[in-house]
């Protein structure tokens, strides 16, 4: 599906007068810093509400973004014209560079403490097996996201900032981004099942 669209897009990127893309949007850093400060305070104080807040907010944003990007935005991007996709990617991908690490850290850092305080880390807990299952799902998603998706994201931004971007290369990297986002999106469905199962026991 994506191939058919991408194969017809062998062009040399956006027009040369386009503005340079900021790889890391500095305006977003205070928000990322705030998210990390909140989760640090939550872990340090073991304030259960703040831990739960960090875990749920981080998890909700992470899951929703992965599902939306992987299953909704990805296929739409695959069908866009190269120029439209380049412009969209140039505005969208730098924001993901700041948002994703912040919300993932928020979710996982607080989630581990919540599991400990709730007693779910104990081998005798009825939720222990579900918790291990969630660790495995998150681990696989982390390897895909950090080893494939995020490097492709950064590489696309750098390629688009070149005087003459290589259209084939952008398509190749974007294809990698779209497919891996789809895989993590599907895996997030598993996370939803596990987490709602844990919360309802």
């Amino acid at each position, binding site marked *: 599906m994506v191939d058919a669209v991408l194969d017809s897009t062998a062009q040399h990127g956006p027009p040369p007068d386009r503005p340079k893309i900021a790889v*890391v949007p500095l305006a977003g850093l205070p928000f990322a810093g705030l998210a*990390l400060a909140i*989760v*640090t305070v939550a*872990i*340090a104080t*073991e304030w259960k509400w703040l831990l739960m807040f960090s875990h749920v907010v981080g998890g909700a944003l992470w899951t929703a973004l992965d599902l939306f990007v992987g299953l909704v935005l990805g296929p739409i991007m695959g069908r866009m014209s190269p120029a439209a996709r380049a412009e969209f990617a140039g505005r969208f991908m730098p924001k993901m560079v700041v948002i994703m*690490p912040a919300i993932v*850290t928020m979710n*996982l*850092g607080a989630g*581990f*403490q919540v599991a*400990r305080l709730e007693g779910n*880390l104990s*081998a005798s807990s009825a939720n222990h097996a579900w*918790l*291990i299952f969630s*660790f*495995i799902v998150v*681990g696989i998603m*982390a*390897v895909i996201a*950090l*080893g*494939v998706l*995020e*490097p*492709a994201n*950064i*590489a696309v931004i*750098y*390629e688009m900032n*070149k005087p*003459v*971007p*290589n259209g*084939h*290369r952008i398509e*190749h990297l974007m294809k990698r981004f779209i497919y891996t986002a789809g895989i993590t999106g599907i895996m997030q469905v598993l996370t939803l099942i596990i987490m709602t199962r844990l919360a309802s026991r």
Partner: protein
Amino acid sequence: MSDTTISTTSNDVDRTYPPIAWMSTLALAAIVSGGILMATYAPRKAPLGVATALAAVGFVLLASAWVSLSRVKVFSWTTFRNVYKWAQLVYVIQAGMIEFAFVRGGTRGASLVIVTAMLVVFATSVPMTMAFTVARYATPD
């Protein structure tokens, strides 16, 4: 991660490199597996033999990636360094948060040493994969 396409203009050339990104990503996969094992047992003592082996696999793969990279002749080291330093800053902060979570979770002693070793691999392998993926397509120095 090691596709090769040759064309005419300089930015159309995708040079062939050793599978450096694969090695650093596999190093990440090894220590993520070890991290899952340690988290599964926390705050009890995890089977340290398996965890140590996974950490060692991670170190060996990462070291192999660095050695392979050091032997590359035509490469954009400027781009690599530029991406690596910022990515490392981000992932050192993340690793610090994870370490903090483990310490608050009661992980101590040998288990904590192994977790720390895994986090060193984590904070090095992710920036390496990112920086290499970007620099391999940049104009060589």
